[in-house]
């Protein structure tokens, strides 16, 4: 049987084209370690502890309900997202299921690049898109605090996501756009407290992951920071954090700081729904200066 030569050419060209596209996709979406040089000064565990609570790490990396070790970030509890159910990892220094064998570089890459020690992309349910705003020193302090926990063995599960391998590659492509967002830079025209607050909100606090609306590509929309939007799990509406004074939500910086510290206990409404209860109870553990810094920054948003 003889094919017309033109059809053959087209078939060969499309096959070659498909291979090329696959190769480009493969290269573009690969997860690579950054190989970045880390500072070597001794880490500050106390600072790491503060950052642990700012991030509310325990809120997602908690043990499955009904198991012991409550209070330790052993991971394993289900975390549902629109893309599937995730099972956040074990943050205790267990060598097999936790961070025990991770190098500092691997930890920093996970937090800022979303790349695992096995060179795989993490799904952005792990909010590295915010953590990449963190200072390296802070990341190392946080790691030192995590390493101070007793090692706990826990069950690690892969996420329930369709075609996980391909989906991770798609995350690699997504990151190429999501990482174009500018990282945090202090504003020299503002005072230290404002800058501290801005850093905590945009970096470790990852407030924008819920409070900033996302565009069609699920990338945080920098033109509408902290304006609120649909709840990521479809549970209603995440409130805007802008113009909180003008909208009559809080009187002043001290008022908001108290609200963050005590939540609904002091009669402040709307601080427990949609996951905010966990956030608030972690914020309650912050030094009061940091709560005031966060409040000063938030109330400056018009």
């Amino acid at each position: 049987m003889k094919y017309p030569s033109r059809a053959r050419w087209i078939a060969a060209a499309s096959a070659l084209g498909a291979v090329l596209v696959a190769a480009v996709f493969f290269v573009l979406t690969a997860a690579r370690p950054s190989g970045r040089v880390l500072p070597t000064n001794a880490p500050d565990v106390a600072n790491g502890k503060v950052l642990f609570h700012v991030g509310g790490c325990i809120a997602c990396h908690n043990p499955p309900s009904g198991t012991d070790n409550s209070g330790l970030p052993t991971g394993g509890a289900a975390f549902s997202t629109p893309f599937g159910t995730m099972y956040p990892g074990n943050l205790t220094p267990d060598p097999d299921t936790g961070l025990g064998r991770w190098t500092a570089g691997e930890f920093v890459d996970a937090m800022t690049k979303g790349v695992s020690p096995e060179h795989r992309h993490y799904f952005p349910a792990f909010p590295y898109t915010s953590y990449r705003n963190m200072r390296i020193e802070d990341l190392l302090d946080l790691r030192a605090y995590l390493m101070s926990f007793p090692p706990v063995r826990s069950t690690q599960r892969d996420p329930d996501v369709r075609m996980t391998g391909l989906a991770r590659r798609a995350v690699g492509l997504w990151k190429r756009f999501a990482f174009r967002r500018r990282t945090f830079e202090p504003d020299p025209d503002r005072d230290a407290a404002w800058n501290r607050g801005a850093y905590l909100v945009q970096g470790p606090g990852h407030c924008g992951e819920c409070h900033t609306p996302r565009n069609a590509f699920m990338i945080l929309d920098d033109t509408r920071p902290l304006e609120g939007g649909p709840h990521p799990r479809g549970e209603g509406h995440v409130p805007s954090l802008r113009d909180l004074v003008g909208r009559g939500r809080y009187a002043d910086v001290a008022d908001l700081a108290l609200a963050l510290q005590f939540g609904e206990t002091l009669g402040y409404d709307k601080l427990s729904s949609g996951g905010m209860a966990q956030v608030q109870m972690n914020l309650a553990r912050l030094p009061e200066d940091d709560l005031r810094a966060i409040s000063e920054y938030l109330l400056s948003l018009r």
Partner: protein
Amino acid sequence: MCPRLWFLLKYVVIDWSTTRERGTEMKGTKIRMLTALAVVAAVASITLAAATGTKAIKERQQAMEDIGQAMKALGAIAKKQAPFDADVVKTSAETIANRLNTAAYLFPDGSDRGDVETWAKAEIWSDHENFQKDLDTAEAAAVAMQSVTDEAAFGPALGVLGNGCKTCHDTYRRPKQ
């Protein structure tokens, strides 16, 4: 409401009377009447359900508003914006306990939606046993608060009560703008 009334009028009164005037066969009239009745029953039950939902939603939102005001009074004491006053504590705690006590009846089946927006989550009805347990815990904390007469015991009691609010709102309320 108006389109529904018109619907009722059209199918039951007008249609019925016109078919009789025209002297259609009895069988046809019967079928028409039965259909009309079924439609009326369906419309009525939907209307009724929506009305029940709306009424319950409004009532529980008012109850929550009352609790919110009482919590603000207690919060003001904790924030030292108001002096400790055992009477204020008692009346505020009574309001909270009463509203929480009746709250159990303000989430009837079918009141997950109505003509006003509700932030109540489906878990209230799918996990009703636990919802009731959380309500009871919060109510017990409010009852305990009623007998607080000294400032030293006030803070911890408020902490327990506040946790009652948080636990329930965490699980059973959607966030709102």
